[in-house]
């Protein structure tokens, strides 16, 4: 059927309206001129409701999904769009899988400016292309004004686990090395700095990035990698506690080895936050056999996203599953689970 639109979308001053979600011509125009134009690939060009994908015979499939509700939508170093692509690619990669395809679903709020939507979608497309993982299918819905927060994005990714790779949060063993790919706390600080009432000037940029290339390099260098996880919400502390619980082990960290940018440290001081609990979107934690640590670290440091990779501690035997830390000051403390949301303190 020939699509004949009287006028092109008014990106500059137009807004999302209920018609865009109705499934009719307006919806088709939004999809074609905004989404398809940005993501353009062979799968989307088929124009079907789903994508038919080729999977290697006998392969183990990994699927991961994520909802993205970050506020504000735009921040230093990214936006909800690029975040949604990186986040799901990373979830798939943390399972040891090679990410292959993405699906993206948009819940748009009536009144959301098309200019902002285009900016987000273009950013997603750029992130997807740079990562080499296409968005092969998607969906759009519109909710009434007041029922959404501009845009919510949900992304799902699928990937394939190479033969011989077994990565799981339950694999950590006492004696294993705990590795971190770089500095912590940047994403959280970049986002917080844009929130009204916390508003401070900083050059801290979100570290949002797709980590599948780094993971491939690490898995290629050694078969001693046992656990991979990216410390997003809740930060490094939460991720390590999750792994400790899953693997039924404890950990002992050395605070002096954990890298934090001076500006992130300063922002956390100002707000009464602990960098260990602040979100990251372009870092990973790896736990590997002790004799594999050197090889894995070397592979990480050779990759642009792992240049500051460092060993931060070891896995211990501990039925209580505590994550403990030797402080730079000299005493020892527990790095506990986050309680509730980490709210900036005055106390």
């Amino acid at each position: 059927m020939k699509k004949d639109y009287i006028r092109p979308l008014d990106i500059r001053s137009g807004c999302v309206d209920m018609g865009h979600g109705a499934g009719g011509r307006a919806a088709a125009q939004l999809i074609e001129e905004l989404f398809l134009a940005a993501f353009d690939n062979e799968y989307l060009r088929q124009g079907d409701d789903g994508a038919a994908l080729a999977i290697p015979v006998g392969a183990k499939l990994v699927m991961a999904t994520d909802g993205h509700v970050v506020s504000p939508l735009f921040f230093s170093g990214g936006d909800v769009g690029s975040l949604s692509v990186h986040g799901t690619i990373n979830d798939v990669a943390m399972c040891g899988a090679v990410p292959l395809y993405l699906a993206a679903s948009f819940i748009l709020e009536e009144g959301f400016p098309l200019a902002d939507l285009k900016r987000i979608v273009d950013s997603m497309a750029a992130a997807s292309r740079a990562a080499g993982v296409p968005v092969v299918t998607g969906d759009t819905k519109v909710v009434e004004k007041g029922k959404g927060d501009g845009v919510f994005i949900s992304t799902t990714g699928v990937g394939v686990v190479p033969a011989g790779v077994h990565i799981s949060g339950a694999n950590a063993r006492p004696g294993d090395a705990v590795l971190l790919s770089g500095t912590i706390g940047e994403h959280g600080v970049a986002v917080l700095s844009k929130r009204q009432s916390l508003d401070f000037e900083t050059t801290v940029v979100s570290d949002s990035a797709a980590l599948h290339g780094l993971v491939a390099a690490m898995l290629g260098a050694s078969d001693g990698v046992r656990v991979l996880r990216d410390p997003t919400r809740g930060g490094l502390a939460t991720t390590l506690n999750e792994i400790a619980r899953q693997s039924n082990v404890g950990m002992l960290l050395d605070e002096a080895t954990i890298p934090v940018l001076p500006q992130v440290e300063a922002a956390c001081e100002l707000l009464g936050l602990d960098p260990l609990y602040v979100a990251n979107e372009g870092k990973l934690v790896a736990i590997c056999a002790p004799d594999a640590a050197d090889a894995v670290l070397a592979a990480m440091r050779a990759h642009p996203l792992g240049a500051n990779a460092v060993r931060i501690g070891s896995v211990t035997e501990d039925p209580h599953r505590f994550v403990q830390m030797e402080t730079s000051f000299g005493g020892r403390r527990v790095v506990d689970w986050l309680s509730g949301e980490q709210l900036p303190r005055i106390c």
Partner: protein
Amino acid sequence: MCLAIPTQLIELRPGALGLVELGGIRKEISVALVPDAVVGDYVIVHVGHAIGRIDPEEARRTLAMFGTLAELAAANEAALP
């Protein structure tokens, strides 16, 4: 209580406001409670307000005290029979 941190006052602004800096982060705060503060001073900031100034000479003396007392003590102990 009292999460308050020392920051450097880098700019004074109208309305008893000031711009402070800590480790590269900058924030606008109120200096109404420290009317004598001048650019270059270190002020202690609590809930968006400067509540006092740091005396650099006293700070230096305190740090010296931490170190000296220990050295003195070590010297004393070394001198013991």
